[in-house]
């Protein structure tokens, strides 16, 4: 009896939560419950990020998705959830078509994910995540349990991410011994700048878009509501 690999156990836990609540998002008809299921599913995906040694990304996922995007979505649900829009039924034909397409797509993706033998084979114990697995007798052919510890390139993932955003790929520069190829090891400074400006433009545009259509286009309040910019004549 081998020792229990807690990395695999937590992977199974988070994977089951993520997949189960993702399926729940699909099958639940109520839009508010869909939002709640999506929160749990995204949080479990953040847990999977932690298990894949992407701690900074897990934290960013928790903050941006679970903290930001979901608050935005829930506000959207609250602003538009009225009467018949809370749960709208879909026709049976669309469900059948979507499930047929989904099952076919899933079969293709499953075959693609499991067909490469180097991806799914059990490999050396990772000492960083499971220190107890060191003394478990797992006879793996050819690779010792200390393969991962030699590399040590996942120690400072957040610092490497920051350097990569500033244009320095530290993990590639250390390994690259040919000076000709060093020119291609540049980081993501331009992408970082573009995405920053993009985010600013998009958020300003979203604020404008959500606000500008509020008057005039509203069919219920087109005539009786006065323009809020003009001074009201009947104000006391």
């Amino acid at each position: 009896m081998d020792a229990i690999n807690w990395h695999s156990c937590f992977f199974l836990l988070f994977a089951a939560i993520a997949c189960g609540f993702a399926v729940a998002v699909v099958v639940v008809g109520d839009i508010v419950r869909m939002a709640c299921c999506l929160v749990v599913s995204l949080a479990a995906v953040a847990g999977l990020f932690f298990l894949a040694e992407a701690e900074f990304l897990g934290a960013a996922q928790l903050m941006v998705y679970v903290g930001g995007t979901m608050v935005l979505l829930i506000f959207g649900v609250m602003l538009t959830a009225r009467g018949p829009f809370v749960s709208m039924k879909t026709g049976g034909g669309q469900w059948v078509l979507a499930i047929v397409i989904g099952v076919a797509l899933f079969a293709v993706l499953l075959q693609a994910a499991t067909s490469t033998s180097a991806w799914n084979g059990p490999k050396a114990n990772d000492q960083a995540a499971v220190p107890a697995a060191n003394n478990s007798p797992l006879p793996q052919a050819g690779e010792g349990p200390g393969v991962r510890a030699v590399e040590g390139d996942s120690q400072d993932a957040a610092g490497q991410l920051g350097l990569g955003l500033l244009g320095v790929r530290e993990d590639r520069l250390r390994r690259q011994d040919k000076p000709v190829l060093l020119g291609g090891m540049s980081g993501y400074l331009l992408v970082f700048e573009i995405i920053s400006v993009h985010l600013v433009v998009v958020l300003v545009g979203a604020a404008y878009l959500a606000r500008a259509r509020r008057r005039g286009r509203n069919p219920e309040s087109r005539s009786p509501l006065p323009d809020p910019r003009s001074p009201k004549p009947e104000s006391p």
Partner: protein
Amino acid sequence: MNIFTEPVGLSHFLVVGAVLFVCGIICMATKRNVLGVLMGIELVLNGANLNFVAFGSSVLRPPGTDGIGMDGQMIALFVIVLAAAEAAVALAIALSYYHAHATVDVDRGVELRG
């Protein structure tokens, strides 16, 4: 093969990503609410993100190979930022659509139909 005693591989993460992706696709196809379609898009982006992180992880890469290194996490970070921007714009469009049509049913938006 007992998964409780053996380390997980890359394909386990890919299978989870595939499940999230397919759930998002079905959600986008079947929901009639605009916000439900948005939630499907979030699921699809998360499935893709999980694949990026798994390919970039140093734990999960096949032994002896170099993997894609820090690129996976970097691209996943950009996807998260772009998803936040996309959610903001799409919610603004959904609110505008709701104010213009007094509904959030995507089947009612037929003004551009030729």
